[in-house]
């Protein structure tokens, strides 16, 4: 039905595609895709308990979870930036054997199921992990602590920053770095005064993306850090738990996360794609 209507009317309405008919073969699946992606978000808005929203969001656990989420995601983003920018530089600028392998390792968390990431982190930092005895000797225990949340989020989110910044570095080529070298600038000065300022927009975009991913982190966090209110229960975990005990609270929390995500998306305004492609 829809296809039939489109076929008749669309070409007149869309002068941009003036030649011939609109390609129904493409439009119909596109419409399905848009509905599929948009409907769940709409459903959250429709089913939200708007009248009791204020009450639900003012609960202590919600405030706790929100604050914990924002704090851990911020720390994870800071750590990712400090470590991720140099990592991106090494991948983009240095020529060494095994570089491709290293790039694969760095980007692996992008496609790895987060739960697997959480398990892997347990085998590094857990009591039986490879660093476990060392940490135990130092009296440090990471799993099921807030520090564990930060580690889980960093593991999952840092690749977004690395990939974004690396793309920008590769795209920037080395012309300006060569010019800086002929003007007497050493490697560090060149990085600080030329390379970094030129990729700063991509570092910003990567950091925002990284923050968004850290904020939504669930699988690795619940596996590695558990679900302790006030310590490791971030917003996504609170949503999940809430769904079993208090569905209205779950929807309210989901709304909150949705609002945060939309804010981030607005802040990015297509920067991510730009940063990746500008390459």
């Amino acid at each position, binding site marked *: 039905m829809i296809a039939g209507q489109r076929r008749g009317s669309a070409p007149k309405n869309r002068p941009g595609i003036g030649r011939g008919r609109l390609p129904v073969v493409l439009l119909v699946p596109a419409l399905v895709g848009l509905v599929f992606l948009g409907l769940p978000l709409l459903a959250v808005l429709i089913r939200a308990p708007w009248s009791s929203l204020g009450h639900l969001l003012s609960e202590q656990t919600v405030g706790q979870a929100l604050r914990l989420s924002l704090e851990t995601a911020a720390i994870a983003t800071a750590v990712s930036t400090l470590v991720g920018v140099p990592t991106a530089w090494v991948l983009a600028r240095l020529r060494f054997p095994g570089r491709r392998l290293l790039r694969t390792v760095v980007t692996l968390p992008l496609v790895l199921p987060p739960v697997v990431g959480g398990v892997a982190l347990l085998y590094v930092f857990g009591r039986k992990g490879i660093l476990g005895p060392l940490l135990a000797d130092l009296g440090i225990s990471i799993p099921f602590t807030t520090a564990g949340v930060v580690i889980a989020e960093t593991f999952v989110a840092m690749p977004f920053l690395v990939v974004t910044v690396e793309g920008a570095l590769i795209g920037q080529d080395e*012309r*300006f770095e*060569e*010019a*800086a*070298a*002929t*003007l*007497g*600038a*050493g490697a560090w*000065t060149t990085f600080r*005064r*030329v390379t970094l*300022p*030129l990729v700063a927009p991509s570092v910003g975009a990567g950091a925002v993306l990284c923050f968004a991913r850290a904020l939504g982190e669930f699988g690795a966090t619940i596996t590695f850090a558990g679900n302790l209110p006030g310590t490791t229960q971030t917003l996504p975990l609170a949503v999940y738990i809430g769904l079993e005990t208090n569905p209205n609270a779950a929807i309210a929390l989901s709304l909150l996360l949705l609002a945060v995500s939309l804010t981030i998306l607005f802040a990015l305004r297509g920067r991510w794609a730009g940063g990746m492609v500008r390459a």
Partner: protein
Amino acid sequence: MTLDAAVRLRQDSFTLDVSLAVAAHEVLVILGPNGAGKSSLLRVLAGLVPIEEGRIEMDGEIWEDAALGIRRPPQGRRVGVVFQDYRLFPHLSALENIAFGLRTGGMPRAAARATAGAWLARAGLAELAGRRPGTLSGGQAQRVAMARALAFEPALMLLDEPLAALDAGTRAATRSELRHQLTAFGGPSLVVTHDPIEAATLGDRVLVLDDGKVAQTGRFTDLARRPATPYVARLVGLNLYRGQVRGAVLHVDGGGTLAVPDRTADGESLATIPPSAVTLHLEEPGRSSARNQWAVLVESIEPVGDRVRVALAGPPAIHADVTVESATTLGIRPGMRIWASVKAVSVDAYSPSER
């Protein structure tokens, strides 16, 4: 303050193998076709590309010596480089661009800005101090790039087609300014170009690079009179032939013969013929004072200034300049079979080594 370099390195498609010496105050123009290795040579001297064999010495200091394993990075060479695309830092103002090299040398921020400001003023750009490179015109960017390189107080100046990015009007003015700046600069300078006017006006001496090797060196006027490469011959508008002379006849490589002046020594020889010395005939000319007469095929016709340049297939092939009037009267058009004649006295034959 003398640059002495003998460098050799293999790149993807060719081998760069060049020896040169440039004295203080001297401007050496590097001339050559695209892909001859001109920019590679500058990059090697700047230290951006390591050499495989040879040595670069500046004023008695070894900058690079492949055999001794000595290699100073670009930072340790004090070269002022003006890149073809200028490479002004896009995120820094004109002033900050010039101050950059001063700051890396350890000059305090305020002093560096003041010095950079003075350089800008000298370039007549004082009012553009705060502007980003993206907002500068080509000529302004060129002057900022030049000021940035000179403010660094380099021992050696390297300029890669410094005027290529400018439009014709700006180029003439900037060219004389550039010549002035290079003369005032105390050390040796190298300027890459493929513009014969720049080669003639900017440089004291010209080095012709062909396929990574030095094909010819000398003053531009000498080069223009007796070129050793087809590239330079084309640049100055001469027909150039290479071949063997036997009894005042040049047997041209690739076919054909040319009568040359009687005193010409036997052996390998180059010969030039100015296109204006060629006469064209519709019929075989018969007996005349021109000892060179041969049948040719018109390949193309193009206007050059107030004349018409006719490309003719031989052998030997030749370019002839005729007036528009003669071309019209003769009705010359591509595909026509006609005759060319040249007096032997118009053929300048010289040994490849004496150029």
